[in-house]
């Protein structure tokens, strides 16, 4: 009979566990339904030469990152030096999707802060962003040789994210 008195305590502890886990979750990180699905195909003007179009099909056959960025985005400024350093290692090509941005501002941004991208394409009206389910820049997609999205990083890439998540995944996908 004594055990009955422990029930409220047990319920309380269970609640603490749930709340504790809840505190660690970021409600802004919504799992993407696009993981393990083919990346949406885009065909957009490149940032450096608008007369030249680039399509996502050009990257077929290699593992690549699609980094969604914009010159107006605060998180991107934080992320940018990490990307510039990372690009020097030539571990994986990074394509930039310049999301809802003024091309002039974007070009100036890359001139001033360095350009980690093999190419940047301009998604001025944000339609490609919608196709990719982008809701908060910066976002980064890891896309495999067959054009399947394997991972989505929401928010700025940090050296830890690169080391613990993205690089191991890229290595695995390259080996496949």
């Amino acid at each position, binding site marked *: 009979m004594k055990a009955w008195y422990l029930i409220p305590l047990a319920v309380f502890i269970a609640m603490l566990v749930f709340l504790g886990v809840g505190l660690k979750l970021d409600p802004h990180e919504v799992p993407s*339904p696009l993981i393990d699905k083919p990346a949406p195909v885009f065909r957009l003007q490149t940032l450096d030469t608008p007369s030249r179009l680039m399509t996502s099909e050009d990257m077929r056959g290699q593992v690549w990152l699609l980094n969604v960025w914009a010159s107006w985005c605060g998180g991107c400024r934080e992320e940018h030096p990490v990307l510039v350093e990372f690009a020097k290692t030539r571990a994986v090509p990074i394509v930039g999707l310049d999301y809802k941005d003024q091309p002039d501002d974007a070009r100036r941004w890359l001139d001033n802060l360095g350009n980690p991208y093999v190419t940047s394409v301009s998604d001025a009206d944000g339609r490609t962003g919608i196709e990719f389910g982008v*809701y*908060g820049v910066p976002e980064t997609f890891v896309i495999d040789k067959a054009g399947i999205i394997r991972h989505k990083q929401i928010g700025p890439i940090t050296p830890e994210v690169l080391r613990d998540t993205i690089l191991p995944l890229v290595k695995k996908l390259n080996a496949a």
Partner: protein
Amino acid sequence: MLLKFVFPLLFAAMLTSAFAKEAAPVAADPVAEARLVKLSSELRCLVCQNQTIADSNAELAVDLRNEIREKIQTGMSDAEIKDFMVARYGDFVLYRPPVKNTTLVLWIGPFLLLAVGGGILVFNLRRRRHAGADPELSHDDQALAESLLHTDSTKETT
């Protein structure tokens, strides 16, 4: 006179026409407009997560309203448009989450808790009834109690 009245009026007219311009594509087709409002108020804006796409003024919400409007104009059904949104942003965009394995706890959790609570209540009530009425005091106990009460009160008064 002119400065005081006509210019403010002109200014006001300009303002209203500016507003009218923004609403024009919607008002053009009242049926599509009603569908847009209904659909967008069932979809969550992922930038400001407690607002619907209809309520939010975040840039993404504006873009998505335009996207939905275009889809309505191309003749897509409400279900198709919702599928389009879910395919890109996940079930989280729906204010009414669908019943499936991952959302089962969400849907039946409250009923489960109610059942458990009700069960405990019924169990306790039964147990109390089986315990029966208060046992009657024996004659001796009654006498003892009375004597105790009596001595107690005399002590207090003295």
